């Protein structure tokens, strides 16, 4: 942020990255680390579990290296000025996640569960598909502003994606949360992960057009700018949709994620703090309101307040019509047993979490086996990804790009917070997964697409040549703002 200048040729301030080196070689060097570290981790797991280097080491290493190499070449070719950190960070997380999933595949306890599948090969396939999607985004999305054209189509898509899990025969209720759809022969899919990106596109397009109306037509009241009643429309609609998600899909995380993302983008678009206040009030009211009658949410809140009681209820087979789960307590024990340095790869007992140990709860395995040090490193990697995303937003020269970048990074940050906070008992558990680490095709695909879009925006922002044929309608009107 040190190079912030107000360029006279643009209405919004930008980061002057003109003449900046492309940093592709930095990216390549970092990528080597991002591949080598998981390979070592993989060898480590094998040595700890069977006393020998796992037989798949070479192919795994080559596979991950190849995928990273393809992604790197795609960036070099199609987005040469992109941010050099995003790809290595995502690759590192994805690689570590794969190792952890493979490690949990070796657990006898998990193998005995009725729905057990060997997840690592599938996750490797998802990763390959995810990176393919990443490359496709880079190839076909030459300029992120193209997405602006699809603002209302995006809205429609997002709504369809969100409603899909509720369609009878398609939706699947997995342990209380209805956020999956089941496609015969392909497995299950979490449309919410994709809706995240599509909604960000819609919000960015919509707010870019409406932001001045939302920002300026307001009355001042008690130090806050209150919006006009009719401008409240959009936020009310998004709020209502979030509440509906919460009620019908009983998923607090997704609901919080979408509403939070919208409030963040609204705030950035209008620079009005009042939106944040409204947003917080509305989400609090919504959450409390729904929690007062939805038993699934109530159970989650109780498990959060007193995980030990929930553990004992689950153990004693309490038959009160509510599905009690010992997972929250098991996750806390896993973290505590890891301590500062962890037990080392393969030597923990996080499989005691059983169901979803390799997806929603995967961070607990990192907590136990890599300890406080490992989890802090992982959280900081997530923090860095978000930081690069925000930086991309700052550097972007067009408001649509700024909004899209901040929407995606904000959603990413919220998701990490909601999931990690849930697993660590900071907030109630929700049914979302750690981006890149957790097992799950939808999550991996969607997050690679998200990184792809961020890389595209950052490439546009840092490209030395003047931006091609700007977007006239966005910046035609000069707005005089009170400041």
């Amino acid at each position: 942020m040190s190079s912030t200048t107000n360029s006279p040729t643009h209405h919004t301030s930008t980061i002057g990255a003109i003449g900046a080196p492309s940093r592709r070689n930095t990216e390549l060097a970092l990528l080597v680390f991002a591949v080598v570290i998981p390979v070592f981790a993989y060898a480590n797991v094998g040595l700890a579990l069977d006393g020998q280097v796992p037989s798949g080491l070479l192919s795994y290493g080559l596979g991950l290296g190849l995928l990273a190499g393809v992604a790197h070449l795609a960036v070099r070719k199609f987005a040469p000025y992109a941010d050099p950190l995003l790809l290595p960070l995502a690759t590192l997380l994805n690689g570590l996640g794969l190792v952890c999933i493979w490690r949990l595949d070796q657990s006898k306890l998990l193998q005995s569960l009725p729905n057990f599948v060997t997840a690592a090969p599938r996750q490797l396939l998802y990763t390959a598909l995810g990176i393919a999607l990443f490359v496709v985004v880079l190839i076909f999305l030459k300029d992120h502003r193209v997405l602006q054209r699809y603002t209302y189509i995006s809205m429609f898509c997002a709504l369809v994606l969100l409603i899909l899990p509720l369609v009878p025969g398609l939706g699947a209720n997995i342990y209380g949360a209805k956020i999956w759809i089941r496609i015969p022969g392909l497995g299950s899919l979490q449309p919410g992960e994709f809706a995240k990106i599509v909604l960000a596109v819609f919000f960015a397009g919509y707010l870019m057009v409406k932001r001045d109306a939302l920002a300026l037509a307001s009355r001042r009241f008690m130090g806050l700018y209150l919006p006009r009643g009719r401008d409240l429309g959009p936020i009310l609609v998004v709020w209502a949709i979030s509440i509906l998600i919460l009620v019908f899909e009983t998923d607090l995380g997704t609901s919080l994620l979408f509403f939070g993302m919208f409030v963040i983008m609204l705030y950035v678009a209008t620079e009005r703090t009042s939106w944040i206040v409204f947003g917080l009030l509305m989400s609090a009211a919504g959450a409390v309101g729904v929690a007062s009658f939805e038993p699934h949410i109530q159970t989650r809140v109780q498990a959060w307040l007193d995980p030990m009681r929930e553990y004992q209820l689950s153990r004693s087979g309490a038959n009160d019509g509510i599905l009690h789960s010992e997972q929250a307590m098991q996750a806390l024990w896993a973290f505590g047993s890891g301590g500062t340095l962890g037990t080392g790869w393969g030597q923990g007992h996080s499989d005691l979490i059983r169901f979803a140990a390799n997806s929603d709860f995967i961070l607990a395995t990192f907590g136990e086996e890599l300890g406080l040090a490992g989890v802090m490193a992982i959280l900081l990697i997530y923090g860095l990804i978000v930081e690069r995303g925000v930086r991309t937003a700052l550097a972007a020269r067009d408001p649509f790009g700024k909004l899209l970048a901040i929407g995606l990074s904000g959603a990413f940050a919220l998701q990490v917070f909601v999931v990690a906070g849930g697993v660590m008992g900071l907030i109630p558990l929700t049914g979302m997964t750690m981006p890149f680490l957790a097992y799950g095709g939808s999550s991996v695909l969607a997050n690679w697409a998200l990184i792809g879009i961020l890389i595209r925006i950052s490439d546009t922002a840092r490209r030395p040549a003047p931006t091609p044929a700007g977007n006239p309608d966005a910046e035609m009107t000069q707005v005089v703002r009170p400041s």
Partner: protein
Amino acid sequence: MNKPLRRIAIFCGLLVLTLLLRDNWLQYVKADSLKDDPNNRRVTIARYATPRGDIIVDGNPITGSTETSKTGLNDLKYKRTYKNGPMWAPVTGYASQAFGATQLESIEDGILTGNDDRLFFRKTLDMITGKEQQGGNVVTTLNGAAQKAAYDGLKKQGGKGAVVALEPSTGKILALASYPSYDPSSFAGNTNDDAAAWKKLQKKYNPDDPMLNRALRETYPPGSTFKVVTAAAALEYGKYTSADQRTESPLPWTMPGTTTQLKNEGNIPCENATMREALRVSCNTVFGKIGSDLGNDKMLAEAEKFGFGSEQFVPVRSSASVFSDDMNPSQTALSSIGQYNTAATPLQMAMVASAVANDGKLMKPYMVDSLESSNVDTVATTEPEELSRPLSSKNAQILQDMMETVVDKGTGTRAKIDGVTVGGKTGTAQHGVENSKNPYAWFISYAKLSDGSSPVAVAVVIEDESANRDDISGGGLAAPIAKNVMEAVIDSKK
């Protein structure tokens, strides 16, 4: 738009910071309490991951470990076994895959599993050389022969009861038996059979409560055996200075502040009897009056010097024995003959006998002699420790003289051993509303060799609800068991 962007950046930073703080809270501040939470399965897994170290008596292990069949999902590799489990259960406690560990098995868990910091060097060495971690051993002070004599005696008797034997000069516990007992092997695993065996032993399903460690955790009214404490108080506070001095003891004696006469058992010569004579025939009137004359405070002070009122950690916790602190003279009189609220564990009464035998010095009782690493290096040794001095050496000898008369020609003649001087005191404690329940038979004693040293002090209590009331008396039921235990100790020293 950049100002709100920067604010959002700060907001995202705060989100990550919150997560980092929470993680530090979980994995640093709360780590140990989560890690050691007994509900945390990892505690059990670690406990049975390697063969557990052994508990050792007389150089031989009384425990063992066997590999459990690794079928299906059993994540616990080894199972505890016990040799002669029911006899040793009050010493070992149990370590069960399904039901956790108690007593010695739990207290010395760190040594037995090999996780204790004192085994750090060994553990590191094993880790470097790639050897499986091995648990250390707990070497006890117990005497196998004495324990067998105690347990067999109780078993033959058939009623509920307990025996504690101590070495007076050190406080070493030589025997610690409780009956009825249980076999900790029977539920050491985590199969359905283990669960069934466990259920059968619970008090809810078994009124005899076999899993109660009566030697340490049950308090009984000590009855006449408490007169030894009262006699000690009389000597220590100078009320009487010799065993053969006539006491001021009217008969019948009406307790102060009441119109109730304190009764003796039968028509025994208690009027102004000497303390020797009063102890020999067990006069309630003499010792009741001594107690009420000395008063609550002095009696309490003396009882506390013998260990009443505090839990002992041997290292297994024993219950605290009771002598009340807010009694009127008549209640003090009753308490001084071991009735009213007075209640003592068998360990406590063995401590009384042992302090008298050890010339007035009460040693802290203990049953762990030393802790060893798996290659038999000693990592810790318990040194004998003086707990208090309830009697001067001179008064202790007077009291010994009196207790020896009890065995020589009083109520305790059945504890006599040829060629050994034995001092003792019988007791028959009444309990229940209006004394409706069967009394407890007590016997406390010590043996003294010709060189003046005392190798053993013992306390025996038998509660027998099925026996005829008249049959129960300390001299008849408890003294023979005490005698066998003392003989076993003396024989093993030869």
